[in-house]
């Protein structure tokens, strides 16, 4: 019987042939924590006399959630991570280096490996053909110390994607659509495998967006077979030698197959307060926005910033709107500077902030006021997520967010793309 990607990778790491439903102890290649979960990780392994790091060069401690620190308690939490790094040799990714998931795919995770991270969006690295999943502080702490974890081999949903995205429609719209379709618990305990011609032709940045949000459907992992595009990406990051092909067997067994034709998709928005509460941007009516956030581990890559810059070039953000832009990593920030994107965005009225999680976690850098509305390119819109239970968060693609920043209300980006390009090509009236 053939194997899914999860079954292949977990078999290699547990020394036996496994299938969905098996419980195993598996070797872990890469471990990661962040400033919200890392201090507890260290505390837990200290308590049982296991404060050590079996594989320091592949253990990364990220200071990204509250970076730079907005208050002394968090500054002290950061010190705990820096001290652990000095003591054990674990790698520290300090203030300004970027969001953990972006940094993990840029420099640390390779196809065929197992990553466990104390952050739910660890599934992002699944786009490289790695088995990457989020766990809690104790699980990751024990993996840091012993290099192992226990796993239940997940059943897999195959997400078969065909068609070509229409202008103004992006992979973010696809993943929001999928979560709206199956629900925020539609894939709990399952692995998702994204496959099909659309995925084969998709850039790595977009693949990361899909895998990043697998957990928003409850999934344990969001996997994509590695291919030439993966290989090119790894070469561009200076580790082409780490490429290997990881793909499911033709006769792999899937619990469910979901087919999506992206040609039929339209710009999609998750409405408050759950990610699966999706609606079409064009159908939302006049929802005024106070804050727009373009960034995060979901959509803070250079490709995302280019889309925003295309829409905002030589324009001004609406006078009632605050536009916050956060490149997902220092390299993304640098590239955006070199390409003139930073200049375009700043001239449009954006605040560009330190690479990191920004306002997505509700700690700092853009907390909402009572009754305020934000449209964000992040992955989560739970009540209180941006620091105020009386704030409302909508999730969208970078294009929808940028268009909304211009117009001052949630806007189908085809309306703006239309005015930039050719009215005849983009007859936006038909959509609104």
């Amino acid at each position, binding site marked *: 019987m053939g194997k899914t990607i999860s079954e292949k990778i977990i078999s290699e790491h547990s020394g036996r042939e496994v299938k969905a439903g098996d419980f195993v102890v598996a070797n872990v290649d890469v471990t990661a924590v962040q400033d*919200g979960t890392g201090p507890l990780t260290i505390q837990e392994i200290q308590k049982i006399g296991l404060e050590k790091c079996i594989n320091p060069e592949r253990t990364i401690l990220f200071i990204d959630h509250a970076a730079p620190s907005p208050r002394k308690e968090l500054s002290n939490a950061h010190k705990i991570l820096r001290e652990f790094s000095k003591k054990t040799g674990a790698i520290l990714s300090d203030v300004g280096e970027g969001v953990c998931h972006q940094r993990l795919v840029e420099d640390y995770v390779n196809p065929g490996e197992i990553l466990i991270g104390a952050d739910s969006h660890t599934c992002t690295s699944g786009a490289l053909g790695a088995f990457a999943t989020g766990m809690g502080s104790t699980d990751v702490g024990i993996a840091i110390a012993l290099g192992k974890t226990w796993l239940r081999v997940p059943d897999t949903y195959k997400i078969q994607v065909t068609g070509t995205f229409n202008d103004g429609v992006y992979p973010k719209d696809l993943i929001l659509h999928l979560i709206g379709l199956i629900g925020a618990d539609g894939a709990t305990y399952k692995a998702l495998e994204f496959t099909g011609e659309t995925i084969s032709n998709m850039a790595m940045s977009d693949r990361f967006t899909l895998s990043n949000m697998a957990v928003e459907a409850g999934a344990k992992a969001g996997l994509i077979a590695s291919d030439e595009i993966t290989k090119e990406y790894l070469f561009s990051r200076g580790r082409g030698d780490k490429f290997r092909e990881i793909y499911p067997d033709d006769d792999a067994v899937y619990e469910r197959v979901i087919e999506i034709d992206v040609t039929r998709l339209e710009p999609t928005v998750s409405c408050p307060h759950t990610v699966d509460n999706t609606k079409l941007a064009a159908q939302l009516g006049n929802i005024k926005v106070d804050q727009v956030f373009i960034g995060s581990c979901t959509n803070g890559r250079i490709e995302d910033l280019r889309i925003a810059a295309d829409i905002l070039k030589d324009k001004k953000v609406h006078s009632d709107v605050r536009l916050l832009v956060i490149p997902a990593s220092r390299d993304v920030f640098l590239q955006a500077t070199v390409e003139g994107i930073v200049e375009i965005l700043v001239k449009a009225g954006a605040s560009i902030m330190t690479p990191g999680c920004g306002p997505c976690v509700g700690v700092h850098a853009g907390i909402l006021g009572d009754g305020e509305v934000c449209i964000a390119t992040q992955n989560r819109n739970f009540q209180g997520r941006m620091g105020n239970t009386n704030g409302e968060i909508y999730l969208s693609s970078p294009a929808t967010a940028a268009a909304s920043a211009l117009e001052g209300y949630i806007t189908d980006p085809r309306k703006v793309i239309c005015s930039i390009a050719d009215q005849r090509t983009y007859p936006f009236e038909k959509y609104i």
Partner: protein
Amino acid sequence: MIKQGKAWKFGDYISTDHIAPGRLFHLRTNLPELAKHVLEDADPEFASKMNVGDFVVAGNNFGLGSSREHAPQVLKIAGVNAVLAKSFARIFFRNAINIGLLAITCDTDRINQGDELELDLSLGIIKNITQETEIIMTPLPDVMIKILNDGGLAKHIEKYGDFQLV
């Protein structure tokens, strides 16, 4: 093991942001203080109204969202006996068992706010004393029972020096 307490009823999709809000991020290194805010964004008065030994009773997908282990930790520190839900989000469920908080999957529709419950783990049932009914709980996988019996994952590893689960 038999545990008795009162039911506090919550709905579907109670997220880790409801349980341990991100705006209280600075309290994550001070769990007893964070526990005073447990479930604050779902019910601001819950922490002051509940008694040690009570049960949190919820609908589907309890604990969705972040991987923060602080969420089950603050429920446990506040003295919640167990969380009963129709379903749990994966990471919360795993974290709860790892730290020794009972997370029990069962049909919670027949439990009302304020009902007196008695949990009998050896029989695998929840007695609703108020309503004089019994609810069968979904059994935990063996791996998780071993972790719970050892007092959580850290204690398991402390005991054996390695995983002795499968």
